[in-house]
């Protein structure tokens, strides 16, 4: 019963997402332990196979496609542990998800961040991106 929240460019992590993404997120959390980090680094596919994830979720992890992970029930606070494990900064992940380069994203932040104008509703967002 995926609900439709009218906020563009946003994956609301609700109970439905939580259910779909349970193992994806639990896998990501497992990377907080050094021994798991080592095993994941040594053979990503083998480590992923140990978790009851869908193949789509596994592919999204391998591809480091964060938006896709979120779409498949990932929660940013969990899946960002994958990025941390790769030695990537949080800002790198954020930039990736917006489709911007990290320097462009960083500059946007220095200039006061993304404006809410045109980013409040899906309709606005579509028009704005034209």
């Amino acid at each position, binding site marked *: 019963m995926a609900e439709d929240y009218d906020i563009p460019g946003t994956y609301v992590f609700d109970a439905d997402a939580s259910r779909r993404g349970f193992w994806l997120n639990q896998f990501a959390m497992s990377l907080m332990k050094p021994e798991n980090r080592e095993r994941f680094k040594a053979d990503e596919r083998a480590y992923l196979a140990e978790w009851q994830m869908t193949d789509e979720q596994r592919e999204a992890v391998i591809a480091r496609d*964060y938006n896709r992970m*979120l779409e498949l029930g990932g929660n940013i606070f969990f899946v960002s542990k994958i990025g941390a494990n790769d030695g990537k900064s949080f800002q790198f992940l954020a930039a990736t998800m917006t489709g911007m380069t990290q320097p462009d994203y960083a500059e946007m932040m220095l200039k006061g*961040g993304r404006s*809410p104008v045109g980013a409040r509703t899906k309709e606005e967002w579509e028009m704005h991106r034209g």
Partner: protein
Amino acid sequence: MARITAGVATSHVPAIGAAIDLGKTKEPYWAPIFEGYEWSKTWIAEEKPDVVILVYNDHASAFSLEMIPTFVLGTAAEFKPADEGWGPRPVPVVKNDPEFAAHLAQSLVLDEFDMTLVNKMDVDHGLTVPMSLMFGQPDEWPVKVVPLAVNVLQYPPPTARRCFNLGKAIRRAVESYPKDLKVMIFGTGGMSHQIHGPRAGLINAEFDNKFLDLLVEDPEQLAAKSHLEYMRECGAEGVELIMWLIMRGALNDHVTPLRRFYHVPASNTAVGHIVLDNA
């Protein structure tokens, strides 16, 4: 009788913790942020509260998706800094006042708040960054801390109204504690931030500043707002601002702002901070 003498709100951005721990507080990017807290550090060192009730959220550190409690009250004797993937932050262990915490727990449940009590929990940047910002880098924290963790990771978090009412119940609980204790309450998280998806980087300075105004003058208006409004206006993760309402609910209707600070950016986030006198 115990009493709440002040309320403090502050963002709890993890990158701020990292900047402190790595000695970067004088760097041009970070210096304005730390300067923003200098007044408050001096003030709280003079005020010397006995206990801080610290409202924050866990970020997939202590709690996985196996268990998602809405309101958690820490009743253990102490809480260790969590290992968030790079080893625990080099900050002191957080010591509780377990007798006071047990009183709060009992009072809140009888007041019909459905608390989860925890006797074992590591505390992540959500709690330790505000401690560092307010108390610096001592060998031991100069104050006891009762952690109060709020679910904001899985939608729906408690409503803004429920948070505000929890604050009021906390006040009743504190004021029914027979010992003489000087208590402060911290609300943390926020301000504007969205750290995921194509809309990441959203900052709404107008909304944030209006929030700071209303927090002082008319918190009822903030308590009436929906999750959707918070998420839409100040980012999906900006919904953390509901935790400031727990702090505000615990104070008098009329409070005096002693200090107010706002800065963009810290990493992906707007930083907001306010000190409210509850005299």
